[in-house]
């Protein structure tokens, strides 16, 4: 059985996926790679845009998601929190 991801893991997956694509990815590709429904993806993206971790741009007929420096910093912070969680068996 696949373990259900928590919020921290989903945000980590979103940011990591964007970073792995050199900081820019099509919104539809991101949705498939992170394996989220359109509704859930939209709510996560809105939250991350409001927190200035990512931005959205329109190029031709596609919407692209870009990671911002604040998003990169947040990823580092998340990495540490995850390591702490893992080290203390939480």
């Amino acid at each position, binding site marked *: 059985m696949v373990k259900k991801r*928590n*919020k*921290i893991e989903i945000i980590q997956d979103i940011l990591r996926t964007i970073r792995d694509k050199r900081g820019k990815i099509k919104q539809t590709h991101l949705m498939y790679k992170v394996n989220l429904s359109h509704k859930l993806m939209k709510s996560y993206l809105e939250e991350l845009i409001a927190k200035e971790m990512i931005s959205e741009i329109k190029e031709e007929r596609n919407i692209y998601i870009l990671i911002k420096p604040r998003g990169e910093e947040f990823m*580092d912070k*998340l990495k*540490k*929190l995850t*390591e*702490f*969680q*893992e*080290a*203390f*068996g*939480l």
Partner: protein
Amino acid sequence: MVNILFSPRWFWGIDALFESVAILATALLAFYAYKLYKFTKKSSHKYFSLSFLTLSLAFLAKVITNILLYFPSLRKNTIDFLLLKYYILSNTNLIYAAGNLVYRFMMLLGLLGIFWVIGKAREKNKLLILLYFISAVSFVSIFAAATSYFILELYPIFHITAALFLAYISYFYYDNFIKKRKNTTLGIFLSFLLIFLSQIIFIFVLVDLRIYVIAELLQLAGYFLLLYEYYTLTRKK
């Protein structure tokens, strides 16, 4: 009112310095676990943070109580009895017994919290029973130490209880290390193992005052290692 100090005179104050490391390590872990909770909103993270905060407050209570015991009591009449030094204290010094009671209860409460979180226990009625037992243990060990020589044998009950919790916690972190095989998980396991061993040694403090020093040194090493692991996990990479 009679109170007993188990520390050799030359060690007075040094133990308070040692315990400051425990205050710092547990407070920092409480703070970081709270940061984790703010993000995940998982109740287990909140309780983990509160448990370390409780441990930190326990050590703070011990340091304050010991400083109050060691220094103003030097002016009072003292009676040497076997290896233990008894200090005759006035009724106003009930604060000392209260301080130790706070230390013991909070220490056991903090350990119970960690035990509860890592054991992923869910049944709240069992938690109430355990809360009752740690309250009883704290009272019994304090009154054993503060009332009469003849029930001093009951004094180590606090350290035995703490050691039992720590044995489980150490085993949990050993298992966590075996599963993850990382330096940090090894460090955390070793730190809890050292703290567990210190509680085992504290049980025998009635035999010789020097045992208290050995136990304090082991406890210091345990919390120092925990502090180092905190630094490793949270430093900028």
